[in-house]
């Protein structure tokens, strides 16, 4: 199993990590600077969208899931789908009460 370990480890360069970090910081700056702009009700959506992009970067590169075994991606999707379903089903109560 140990050779398994080495084989599946795709090495990411220092440079890639720096680029990811730069994008994360830029996105943070972006989300702060547009927070003042009056987007009305979609402001929250935009902020969350940016947060989602940021977390996508963290998960794929920092947490390496992009280069991991497919099973990890499936697991992750299962967990996210569960969380999503909880939100949707609870919303039926929250929004229609």
């Amino acid at each position, binding site marked *: 199993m140990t050779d398994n370990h080495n084989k599946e480890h795709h090495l990411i360069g220092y440079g890639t990590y720096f680029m990811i970090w730069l994008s994360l910081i830029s996105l943070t700056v972006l989300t702060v600077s547009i927070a003042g702009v009056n987007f009305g009700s979609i402001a929250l959506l935009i902020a969350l969208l940016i947060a989602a992009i940021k977390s996508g970067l963290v998960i794929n590169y920092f947490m390496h899931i992009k280069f991991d075994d497919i*099973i990890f991606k499936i697991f992750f999707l*299962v*967990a996210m789908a*569960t969380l999503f*379903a*909880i939100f949707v*089903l*609870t919303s*039926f*109560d*929250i*929004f*229609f*009460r």
Partner: protein
Amino acid sequence: MANPTIAEKFESYLDYPGMKKGLFGWIFSIDHKRIGLLYLVSMVLFFAVGVTLAFIMKLEMLSPGKDVVDPQTYNTLFTLHGVIMIFLFIIPGIPAVFGNFFLPIQLGAKDVAFPRLNLLSWWLYMIGGIFAIVSLFLQGGPIDTGWTFYVPYSIRTTTNVILPLLGAFILGFSSILTGLNFITTVHRLRAPGMTFFKMPLFVWALYSTAWIQVVSTPVVGITIVLVIIERIFQIGIFDPALGGDPILFQHLFWIYSHPAVYIMILPAMGVVSEILPTFAKRTIFGYKAIAYSSLAIAFIGYFVWAHHMFTSGMSDTSRMIFSLLTFVVAIPSGVKVFNWIATLYKGSIDLRPPLVYVMLFIFLFSIGGLTGLILGSLATDVHIHDTYFVVAHFHYVMFGGTIIILFGALHYWLPKMFGRMYNEKVANIAAGIIFVGFNILYFTMFILGYQGMPRRYWSYLPEYQTLHIISTVGSWILILGMIVMFWNLIYGVLKGKSAGDNPWGGTTLEWQIQSPPIMENFHEIPTITHEPYYHAAAINTEDNKHKKIDEGENE
């Protein structure tokens, strides 16, 4: 796999090979088999406490007004009975005992993926349990909120709420660790040739259960933490006086606690899928259907939680959606039952104690399930919500379902775990007493509830008294049956005659090894070439029968 000669006996896991002697060899052992037994012993002790509390409750119900306890004591009695039975007994239940013991063996592995974590989860379990028990004796008195801890009462009552809640949180942690251990074990430690569709159905059930444990327990974890914080700091999140919404508590609570009923029942269904092919002497009917239905139950079961909240003031839209979803979850359960019956059809049925318990299960669980339909449909539930009808329903499914199968699993696997056989005739008689007592105790509760007897009440109107007396007598019979059963099992474990390696003619891997198993389970990791319930491949079953008789004569 080479044919292991059974006559050759090796030192078993019970004999401390390479471990500390005495108690420490057990409570610090990281062997999955020993941890399984640790759970078994501790759970049975907690169960005894829970039953004692119930016994007192039923005595109190002999007549209206005070018989043995006062109202506040009654409140704490049903709360603790619920907490102990749910969090300390039935949720760890089958996975913690039989999952720990047999999951690695059935997969052809030497242990679970994280043996140390496994030991930790037993320790957490004990700590959680001790917290719950200790809270009894502290100032303020034992918790009286009901096992559901509903706010706002649980943030107002002056009894000891924080300690048992902390206990429940720790127990959740323990459950999560078991779950993630099992998932990783199934993915990483299958023996060569053991593909997913060659795994025994018990493993499938445990796998599905483990997923529910991992993805639902944290939700109740945070809920419990918030109640504790609310009590200490007044953050207002669940306090209606400060703008909080108690219904959200109920959502979060049931997001866990409904899937939790599948944590309880799925492993039991897995055990049934093991016992049936063994005693019908043929392969299981519809292997894949049963395997997938476990996953389906786990999946859909996650989305029906709010049927516990039909009368809570939740929106009508969600009441209808959840009522619909509740009916959908019956489909995969139905798939299982049909396949089980098809397995028995034309099988050469050998009615030994484990199968007797499965029969009880099918009968009792069907009653529980069918009354569940009545509760699941919105219109009828509004009338019988919070009555004894509900109490009867969940005892039929939890006790008549899971616990009866836990008893069945004990009868099925104890000979493997200890290498000794109990008295089968006594086992059957005990099953009979349990069955009679159970129905007298709980069926009357259906009628009581239908007539309007509310649950969690200390006293009642005189017209309910006859039924309550019948029910109480039933509880005595049931407890008598359980005493006989446990006595028979314990006597068998200590003094019974040798069971042989494969007393039932089972086909899965645990029956191909020595009983009791050696420390590393297998001398040589097996290679799997056929499906799990392939009877022609079972090793030495006939030999075993002769061997058993021989040894019996020697005693």
